[in-house]
């Protein structure tokens, strides 16, 4: 039953030698053995995990001072480079790819002694919000197997929720950590842009991508965040400030939380709106001040997001042409045929769509109309939020307007589906930190997420408020029994 505990609890048990890292890893592996076939969270599994756990035990036995998280199992999204395991981005294009280097975050978790359980499923190249565009497998929501886990970090969220890992890493470009966290009833953080190194994160949209920690409790999420955050000379956009050191407290007295009403009305599931409002009332009861705000510029967030993220994606994915790495078509008639067949066969439909969309908005005749205007909208959103944060410490809204949907529901209307990202993309566009914390379930038994957005580099405020809420209501449960 060790898989049920939080990282903080397990850390104390390991340090007191009440349990061994090996036992813990065995527990996780048993859970994977019994549940992976129905959840499908992982794309590859670390065969050396047990040996690595034993090694941590040996080091501890020798009296070495270890990081508090040493020996804790962690799942890594499969668009984060690892030397020891494949990095596929859930794409045919990289199905056999082996990165020759570890991402900075992987170096950091390994240096802390955490043990990678495996690489988790995602939407192909992180493009999607249901993990359905993965070219390898479907990941099921542990709360209801007929429903999607959200995405793109659906594998990481489902693995946490199903007890197939203790901690996880995801990546968030437009909500890809927070939305699946909310769908699966776990905690997920989008750090401030530049707080976590992107070195080793396979790029989707570079100006929006951030790696984020995921866990089953706020405290765990904060502990993992302090391991992965901090400057890195290998990422020019990574700000050279030290990692967050967070001391836990739950005092929200005097904190002002802005509540933009437009995110609670039309288009938002009433149960979702209600759960979030209830959570906010609880924070208010603890001394936080709620204030109604409006974010008119953020109305354009989804349009701006799709224009900018697709533009960057079309550029970032040009390198997949079958020359230096990855899939190459058997059609090598000539260079053009090799390029076209490789890219058409290697990329799935959603990725192809975004590449074309991105090329379109950057093309000579359209740049001004699309790319420039989206950039302007982005600047306006930034300015609006900056101004709002003069008056508020946090902004609260649902993480997603709806709970987890059924498989195949959105495939027919991709553009309509993009609208569902309204709540999450704003933080990415503004480069601000945001956290999703479970705040109840709908009558269908599906988790709802409360999203809090904060000032740049003020993740501590997010953790404080989220922790206060979590302490007040108790840690969100894991699904009782994973069943149909």
């Amino acid at each position, binding site marked *: 039953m060790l898989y049920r505990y939080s990282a903080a609890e397990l850390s104390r048990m390991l340090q007191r030698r009440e349990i061994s890292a090996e036992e813990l890893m065995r527990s996780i592996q048993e859970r994977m053995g019994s549940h992976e076939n129905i959840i499908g969270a992982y794309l590859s599994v670390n065969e050396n995990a047990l040996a690595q756990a034993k090694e941590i035990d040996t080091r501890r036995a020798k009296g070495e001072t270890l990081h508090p998280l040493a020996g804790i199992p962690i799942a890594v999204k499969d668009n984060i480079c690892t030397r020891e395991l494949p990095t596929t981005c859930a794409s045919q294009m990289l199905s*056999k*790819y*082996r990165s*020759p*280097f570890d991402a900075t975050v992987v170096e950091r978790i390994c240096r802390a002694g955490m043990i990678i359980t495996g690489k988790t499923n995602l939407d192909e190249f992180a493009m999607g919000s249901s993990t359905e565009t993965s070219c390898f497998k479907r990941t099921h929501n542990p709360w209801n197997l007929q429903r999607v886990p959200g995405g793109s970090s659906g594998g990481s969220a489902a693995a946490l929720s199903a007890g197939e890992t203790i901690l996880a890493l995801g990546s968030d470009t437009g909500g890809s950590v927070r939305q699946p966290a909310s769908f699966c009833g776990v905690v997920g953080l989008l750090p401030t842009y530049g707080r976590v190194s992107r070195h080793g994160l396979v790029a989707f949209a570079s100006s929006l991508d951030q790696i984020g920690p995921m866990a089953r409790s706020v405290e765990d999420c904060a502990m993992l965040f302090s391991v992965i955050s901090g400057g890195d*000379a290998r990422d*020019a956009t990574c700000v050279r400030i030290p990692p967050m050191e967070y001391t836990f407290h739950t005092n929200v007295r005097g904190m002002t939380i802005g509540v933009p009403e437009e995110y609670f009305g039309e288009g938002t599931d009433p149960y979702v709106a209600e759960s979030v409002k209830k959570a906010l009332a609880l924070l208010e009861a603890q001394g936080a001040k709620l204030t109604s705000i409006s974010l008119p510029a953020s*109305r*354009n967030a*989804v*349009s*701006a997001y*799709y*224009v900018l993220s697709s533009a960057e994606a*079309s550029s970032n994915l040009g390198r997949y*042409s*079958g*020359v*230096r*790495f*990855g*899939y*190459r078509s058997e059609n*090598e*008639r*000539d*260079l053009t*045929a*090799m*390029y*076209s*067949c*490789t*890219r*058409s066969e290697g*990329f799935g*439909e959603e990725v*192809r*769509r975004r*590449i*074309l*969309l991105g*090329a*379109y*908005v950057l*093309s000579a005749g359209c740049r*001004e109309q*699309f790319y*420039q*205007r*989206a*950039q*302007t*909208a*982005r*600047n*306006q959103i*930034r300015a609006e939020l900056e101004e709002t944060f003069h008056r508020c410490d946090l902004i609260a809204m649902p993480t997603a307007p709806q709970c987890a949907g059924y498989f195949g529901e959105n495939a027919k209307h*991709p*553009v309509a589906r993009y609208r569902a990202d309204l709540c999450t993309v704003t933080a990415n566009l503004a480069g601000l930190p945001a956290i999703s914390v479970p705040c109840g379930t709908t009558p269908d038994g599906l988790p709802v997420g409360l999203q809090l957005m904060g000032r740049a580099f003020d993740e501590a405020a997010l953790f404080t408020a989220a922790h206060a809420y979590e302490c007040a209501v108790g840690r969100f449960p894991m699904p009782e029994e994973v069943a149909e």
Partner: protein
Amino acid sequence: MERNELVALMRLMRIEPENNEEIETLLQEMRAISAMAEELPQAEEAISQDNLCGMQLREDIHVACEIPQEVLLSNAPAVVDDCFAVPKTISQGGEC
């Protein structure tokens, strides 16, 4: 957006449609996105003045790559004489 524009775009991005249906779907989506972009504010030409603290530059010092050549080349679909092999190119160089 017109169909021929989309086809030209696909050629530019070295992506072939699977079938006619895919082109039709794509066309619809491109148009939907165009419509969405209509809501965007008029462009103001200005570099975002954020991040103007500037970027820390790298010192010009050689650091040997610790990854052996064979590992760097190991993901390539075709290697001949330590070079990446591709179908014959026409000119010597692409662009400058």
